[in-house]
């Protein structure tokens, strides 16, 4: 947990210094991204952050494993940094640059089919927001994904938007991001993780929508940091 609190502090710092960022949506999936990068994914695997507004979670994890400089929070959303509010590929080694919702599963299907056709090893992981399942293109892709091997779709179920029951029923539910390691080892390809929007910051957990795209001021930032000590 202390590791993750350091990452949460980075996320808050980036938002505070830049005055922008989708903090609660990043906090809800931080542990999923961290688990995937540190305990699940291997060099041949592909990761797709379909909910691109959680860029801060991705940057925090990349920073913690040395793929971004430690001072990345000072550069977030600053000119010439390449660290945009939604991930851009031009200066980061990413498979997918996203931001518009409802595309990641389709990209994941394409990547998984390509691996099969080329006889390559590796799996494809797509992190999707539960709200994204409201997009028609997500539903198109979910239908097609049924027949695709080596594709793992993980839903950040922070409950802000509820997908139709029939869709959610197809997923294996996990109470904790840490459980996805076991589920993936069992080859469950549709995994729904129950998360909390704004996790770790009580003000954001209490009113996640008000904080959806908002940065803390100096006083709020100091208070939030105290919570993470």
């Amino acid at each position, binding site marked *: 947990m202390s590791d993750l609190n350091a990452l949460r502090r980075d996320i808050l710092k980036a938002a505070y210094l830049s005055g922008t960022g989708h903090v609660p949506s990043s906090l809800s999936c931080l542990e999923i991204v961290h688990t995937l990068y540190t305990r699940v994914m291997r060099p041949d695997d*592909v990761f797709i952050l379909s909910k691109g507004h959680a860029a801060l979670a991705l940057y925090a994890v990349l920073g913690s494993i040395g793929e971004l400089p430690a001072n990345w929070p000072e550069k977030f959303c600053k000119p010439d940094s390449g660290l945009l509010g939604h991930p851009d*590929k031009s200066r980061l080694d990413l*498979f*997918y*640059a*996203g931001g*518009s919702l409802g*595309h990641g*599963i*389709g*990209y*994941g*299907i*394409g*990547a*998984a*089919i*390509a*691996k099969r*056709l*080329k006889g390559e090893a590796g799996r494809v992981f797509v992190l999707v927001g539960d709200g994204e399942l409201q997009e*028609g*293109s997500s539903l*198109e*892709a979910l*239908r*097609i994904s049924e027949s695709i091997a080596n594709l793992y779709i993980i839903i950040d179920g922070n409950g802000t938007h509820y997908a139709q029951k029939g869709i959610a029923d197809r997923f294996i539910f996990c109470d904790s991001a840490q459980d996805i390691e076991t589920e993936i080892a069992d080859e469950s390809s549709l995994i729904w993780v129950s998360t909390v929007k704004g996790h770790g910051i009580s003000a954001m957990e209490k009113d996640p929508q008000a904080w959806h795209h908002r940065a803390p001021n100096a006083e709020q930032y100091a208070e939030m940091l105290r919570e993470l000590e």
Partner: protein
Amino acid sequence: MRATFANHLSKSPDSRMVIVLADIGRYQFRDFPQERVIDVGISEQTAIDIAAGLSLSGMCPVVYGIAPFIVERAYEQIKIAAYNAAAITIVTCGASYDYGTEGATHHCPNDVDILSLIPGMRIYTPGTGNEACRLFDRVHGKGMNYIRLSDYENASTLPVNPNETCIIQLYENVETTVVAFGNTLDAAREAIGDRRINLVYATEYRDSYKDIPGSRLVFCADFAYPGLPHLFANDVLPRGELTKDLIKSVREGIEEWDK
């Protein structure tokens, strides 16, 4: 045009080529290696997203579908594929008013214009099936390409190339030039008749035509380009009538410069 193009692709030795279909074209591509044909069903948006995922993983995808349902429904997917630096060749049938009897939902006169707004998009309007094959071979796998197939072909195939136009006739000291796009070349010839007017044939839509001779350009195209009125067609559009209208508008364009 469609059969010529599908047969051509089916003979390709490129094992990285993947055909992504949106519920049409299975019959046309029946001779293409079936393990590399992915029919996503009536899901044009996902057809583009999957093709982008294939491209970013080292494959060379072709998406094939009906023009309005690919270009207008999946426009954002095409934009995002371009933003992700994917290389996809999008090939459509049902150009412009090819489905003139089917109503405005099936018309697609704006595809060329709106795709030209996407950075890096290359747009081709071949006039015959063999020209489509020739252009495909030169551009496929390199960036985002759009090749518009039509049910109507010119009488003859020309040696077209990307980023080039073909000069059909050029007169000294004549400034008026008709630029005929794709399948309208025969109509342009008819509009010009025996007048001393330059005629250039274009199969790629570009932002600028500075390399075309003449300072008085008259466009001859069956798609909408900036400056034309945009209207829904609320009636059947027979092909013969459309061609007559096109010939008339080209003649008016020439006469406008003569004033």
